[in-house]
């Protein structure tokens, strides 16, 4: 469990995505791992800079899709062949082409729900409280027009004074200490 008191990390504020990416890339090269960037819109380069590559949302989506397909197709088959067989003009009970449409819809339904809820779960949301919201400049800028780099105290390289000096070399607008 991470500590719930003391310093969460140091937050550097930048004006442009370019400055953020350069700082993040440098910090990652210098061995920082417990860090994150905060941007008002998706900045792919920043995610690459901090070494975020694996993304399990597509896998969850595929599993959901296959489950939806299997669930509906087997339900249709079971209902039409075993539970409630209807003889309409001597047509076959296992009339699989007619079962495609609902199975197709459920594939999409389950895949979509898995992608959306999988994304939310992998992001550990809902997280209504987060230490970063305590930073004075975070809430006014993070989802508007500022770009943030946070070095977290859990990183073994973290030292309040040294890390602050390190961040200042990137010429941010400000570096603030974030408390839990």
């Amino acid at each position, binding site marked *: 469990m991470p500590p719930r008191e003391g310093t969460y990390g140091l937050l550097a504020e930048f004006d442009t995505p370019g*400055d953020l990416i350069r700082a993040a890339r440098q910090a990652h090269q210098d061995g920082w791992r417990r860090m994150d960037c905060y941007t008002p819109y998706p900045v792919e380069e920043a995610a690459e800079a901090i070494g975020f590559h694996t993304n399990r949302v597509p896998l969850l989506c595929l599993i959901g899709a296959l489950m939806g397909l299997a669930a509906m197709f087997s339900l249709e088959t079971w209902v039409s062949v075993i539970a409630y067989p209807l003889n309409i003009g001597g047509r076959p009970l296992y009339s699989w082409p007619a079962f495609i449409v609902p199975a197709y819809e459920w594939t999409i339904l389950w895949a979509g729900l898995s992608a959306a809820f999988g994304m939310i779960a992998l992001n550990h949301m809902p997280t209504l409280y987060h230490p970063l919201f305590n930073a004075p400049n975070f809430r006014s800028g993070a*989802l508007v027009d500022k770009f943030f780099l946070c070095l977290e105290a859990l990183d073994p390289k973290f030292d309040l004074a040294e890390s602050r000096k390190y961040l200042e070399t990137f010429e941010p607008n400000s570096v603030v200490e974030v408390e839990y």
Partner: protein
Amino acid sequence: MATSNLKPTDPEYKRWVDPATGEYRVIEPGQTFKSVTDKITRIVLTPHTPMGWFAIFALAGAGATVLLVAVTWLFLKGVGIWAITQPVAWGFAIINFVWWIGIGHAGTLISAILLLFKQQWRNSISRFAEAMTIFAVVCAGMFPLIHVGRPWLGYWMLPLPYTMTVWPQFRSPLEWDVFAVSTYATISVVFWYVGMIPDFGTFRDRAKSKAGQYFYGIISLGWRGSVRHWMRYETASLLLAGLATPLVLSVHTVISFDFAVAILPGWHTTIFPPYFVAGAIYSGFAMVLTLAIPLRKFYHLEALVTERHIDNMGKVMLATGFIVAYGYGMEAFMAWYSASHWEAFMFWNRMFGPMGWSYWTLIACNLAIPLTTLWSRKLRTSIPFMFVMSIIVNTGMWFERFVIIVTSLYRDFLPSAWGTYRATKWDYMTFLGTLGLFTTLFVLFVRFLPMIPMNEIRMLLPGAKILPKKPKEVGR
């Protein structure tokens, strides 16, 4: 504006082409992250709701009340209050169902298909087009339920283990509809909500009132803009777009099966699926224009929803309008080429029978007027013209469904079974009522939710360009 053939000497050139990069602009120049955020958050977070909003809300609410009255009377008296009888057993309810679902399809096209095609101009209009989809599906989904006559038994359509051990018939297109429409509604809501999560985060951070902070705080799920979250979010959005694309095509296809699978002349045709989908997008874009034009004026969003958007939507309407025209042409051709005298009579009667006026209204509204005028760039960028055109096309598409349903049914195979169709006041009240319900939901959406996706607009701004390092003074 059609930007591709603008010359640098053209006075409009500077407005639509970025001189620094030579790229075409989607929104007006001069916008920054802050100005866009301010503009959109102010609409929602202002404590002063404009009086005009209340006026429209009252009017739309009155319409929704009419729906409530009509549906209450329907539940008390039964579907006999509508004009449906033999041989026209499907009337306004199914016409409206198909029309509303079709309108919804443009929202998904804008939010999903144009996203996959990287059409950045969609960013400004995608959110409210998606909202339009959901509210249109709400209106559409109601019709089959109230049309069944015994709405309290609506759950029989679902495969549930009842004590009577009866199961639905999975070989019927009407049963497929249940799954197509319910999946469409669910996925549209999820896509819409996921798209709004980051904007709710902005609202939470900017809300002044405690209630606003709590409300947007909870529905933002604590979004804080971490790039790790953004990457998963982007993947999920793309996946949802990729899933919504085949979904939207399947929904109107399945709805067209309701007709095409029947052996009735006028319904039994293989052109229906593509022609229904194209018609859906045609009417849907018309509805987006009907909503966008007053909205951008009322909330002064001309810089974000520009003439270029209106122009592009006009072009999409022109293209889909021609697909629809091909559908009409092919129906007429097949009536002759099939050498089936039932088909030929049906088509002759559709054009020149007692209900022929509805066919010619449809031809005028869907083909004659739009497909001759939308070629002109001058007319496509004329806002009042496009507003009128959107109403015309919506009317035409409503008549298309009227023609398909009523004129195929009212002349049965033998003259002894012929009938007619004359809608009752309850039919009209239900239809006008859904227009009221749709507008009510839409004005509530505009007031309380972000109608333009701020996070997507930010990506289009010059500030989002990743530039090489500059000396600090110049950069500020």
